[in-house]
Structures are given as structure tokens and as C-alpha cells.
């Protein structure tokens, strides 16, 4: 299990995964001020939502290389021959993917918060939300990757499959920024994230097994 996590993490680092995600995330976050205009009060108001949207879009980037390349290079065949549980493999992939993209994204959110003129209080809420939400996002990325692996032109399909499923994370993540009613939203965010983390490996495993046939 640890060997699997280390392998995936190394692959993500060596392919520049985190750097790309962070750069893309910051780019999307910078586009909003350009499009909306330098109204500091308005930016501070929508900034939290912008960060969540940017995080969601950035989470799409690494999806294609989570499962597809391993399927092609026969790595999953080798796992299967060794009688390894595909569910555990999917869990390992989820953990490695989160380690590779969750913490860097949380760091980048600090910079984005500066760009968007967010208050320290809002930034704290964003960070807590991301800490709770990104594991769910990582699980969703692995399951999407397993579902679209082997589909030709999977790049476009990836977004269409993953983004609608990530909407609850976005709603409750952005909802948790509300100082008045944020506490309820953050519990719901945690619930959605937990469901994704607990359920996704089983679906991903089934998808991988189907792809092996």
C-alpha cells in the first residue's frame, strides 16, 4: 500500500503535476479580477466562490493521468495477477492524488486570497473548506479517471463527468464562507466529502476491473 502511494506520488511530482495544478488555479483566480474589474469590495465578496471554482477547474487537470496510463502500460494487469484488491489500489491512488494536489492547492489559495483581497477570516474559512473538500475532490478525480480510462478523446468527457458530480462540494464549500450560516454548510461539505471518499474507491475498482476485461 505504501509502495503504491509512494509510486503514484513520485509519478505526480516528476510529471510536474502539482506545479501545473497550482499555476492553473492561480491563473483562473486571476482571470476573475480581469473580467470583473478592480472593484476591491466586489472582489472580496465573490473571492471565496472564485477560489472554489478555480480549485474545481484545477482539479480536472491531473485526472487523465491517474488511471489511464497505468491501464495502458499493463500495471493493473500485474496488480490483478497478484490478486491485489482493486479497491485498495484505488484507495492508494486517492491518497497519493490528494497528497499531490490538496496541500499545494491550499498553499496557493493563500496567494489567491491576496489577489482577491479576501479578509483573514474568509481565508481561514476557505482553507478549512478546502481541507475538508479536497479529499472528496481527489476521490472523485480517481473515480472519474477510472470511468473514462480507455475512452477515446477522454479529455472532454472528463470534465463532463466530473464537474456535475463536484457541484455539491462547490455549493457547500462556497456556502461555508457565509459567516452567519457557514457552520451548517461545512458539516454538509464534510458529509459529501466523506461519502465520496468512502464510496468512490469501490466504483473506481469496478470500473478498472471492467476495463481489464
Amino acid at each position, binding site marked *: 500500500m505504501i509502495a503504491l502511494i509512494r509510486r503514484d506520488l513520485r509519478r505526480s511530482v*516528476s*510529471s510536474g503535476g502539482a506545479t501545473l495544478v497550482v499555476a492553473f488555479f492561480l491563473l483562473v483566480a486571476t482571470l476573475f479580477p480581469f473580467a470583473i474589474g478592480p472593484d476591491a469590495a466586489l472582489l472580496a465578496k465573490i473571492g471565496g466562490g472564485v477560489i472554489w471554482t478555480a480549485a474545481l477547474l484545477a482539479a480536472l487537470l491531473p485526472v487523465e493521468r491517474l488511471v489511464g496510463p497505468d491501464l495502458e*502500460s*499493463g500495471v493493473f*494487469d*500485474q496488480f*490483478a*495477477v497478484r490478486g*491485489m484488491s482493486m479497491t485498495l489500489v484505488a484507495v492508494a491512488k486517492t491518497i497519493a492524488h490528494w497528497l499531490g494536489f490538496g496541500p499545494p492547492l491550499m498553499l496557493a489559495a493563500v496567494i489567491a486570497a491576496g489577489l482577491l483581497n479576501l479578509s483573514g477570516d474568509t481565508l481561514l474559512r476557505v482553507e478549512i473548506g478546502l481541507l475538508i473538500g479536497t479529499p472528496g475532490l481527489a476521490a472523485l478525480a480517481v473515480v472519474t479517471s477510472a470511468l473514462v480510462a480507455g475512452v477515446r478523446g477522454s479529455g472532454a468527457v472528463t470534465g463532463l463527468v466530473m464537474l456535475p458530480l463536484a457541484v455539491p462540494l462547490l455549493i457547500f464549500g462556497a456556502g461555508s464562507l457565509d459567516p452567519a450560516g457557514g457552520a451548517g454548510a461545512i458539516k454538509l461539505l464534510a458529509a459529501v466529502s466523506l461519502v465520496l471518499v468512502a464510496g468512490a474507491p469501490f466504483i473506481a475498482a469496478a470500473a478498472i476491473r471492467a476495463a481489464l476485461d
Partner: protein
Amino acid sequence: MLFSNVSFDLGPGDAAIVTGPNGIGKSSLIRIAAGLLAPFEGAVTCKADKALLTEASALDIDRTLVAALRFWATLDRAPDPEERITRAVKALDLEALADIPVRLLSTGQRRRASIARVAATDAPVWLLDEPANGLDLASVTRLEALIARHRSSGGIALVATHLPLSLPGAREIAL
């Protein structure tokens, strides 16, 4: 339907060569034996660990040959992984390439690396799909010697090939 009425039974030291024209289902037979494909009818019983060699090398292309082999040796939890890797690398004359990233290897070298991955396991059952593809004559001889050594230590080899391989005493399964 690819093939029907295929039945065989291999014990320690046995080998079988699967032959037949392209597309007849040699690779599918290997995948069924490996448990990756479910047969439409019938069953596969295998009482020991299996090592599989297919077209795909399953070696990480951005790592060095030895590091890529080490990943699988670690997963297999066989005793003395380093010793096994060294022996397998030597048996396939890959010592000079040990620290070269897998992506720089040629087709034949990659095939030899995959064979080394199989040789480094302690799985008694070897399932080899076209192991001689892309190999030069010297490497084919090494492969034959490796399979012979594996069998003499009680191993089993099921080999699908369209190239002639000399495996003394192997039974032929013609599809």
C-alpha cells in the same frame, strides 16, 4: 468465439507452448489463465502464484530499469528482492542498462526488462505472451535457458508464441 475444447493440466516442471495463427486467441488464453479474462465456459484452476508477461511492460518509463523492477519486487514481498533483481538483470544481460530510464530502452531491451520482471518474482507459474517478440538470437537463447532453469526448480511455464522456442519436453497446445 475464439476457441473451444481447450484443456490442459501442468504440474511442477511442465511447460506448454500455445501456438496458432494471429488472432486465434493465444493472448486471450494467457489472459484467461492469468484470471484477467473470464472464460465463456469452463474454469481455470491454479494452485500457485502467477507471473505474467504481456505486450505491455508495466515498468515505469521515467524510472531507471532497476528502480522499476524494484517496485514490483517490493510488491511481491519475495525474500531478498535485491538479490533476485541482480540475478534477473544478469540473466538477461541487462547489467549495462541497469541505471538507464526505461523510456530510453529499445523494444527488445524493454522486452528483456519485462522478462527480468517475471524472473525476479518467486511465482512458480509463468504465463508468457509472445516472450520472444523483438528479441535477438542471443536473447532468445537466454530466455530458453531461463525457462529451463525455472522448470528444473519445479516451475511451470505456459508460453504463447508464434516464433519457434526450444522448450524440451513441452507439450504443444495448437489452437
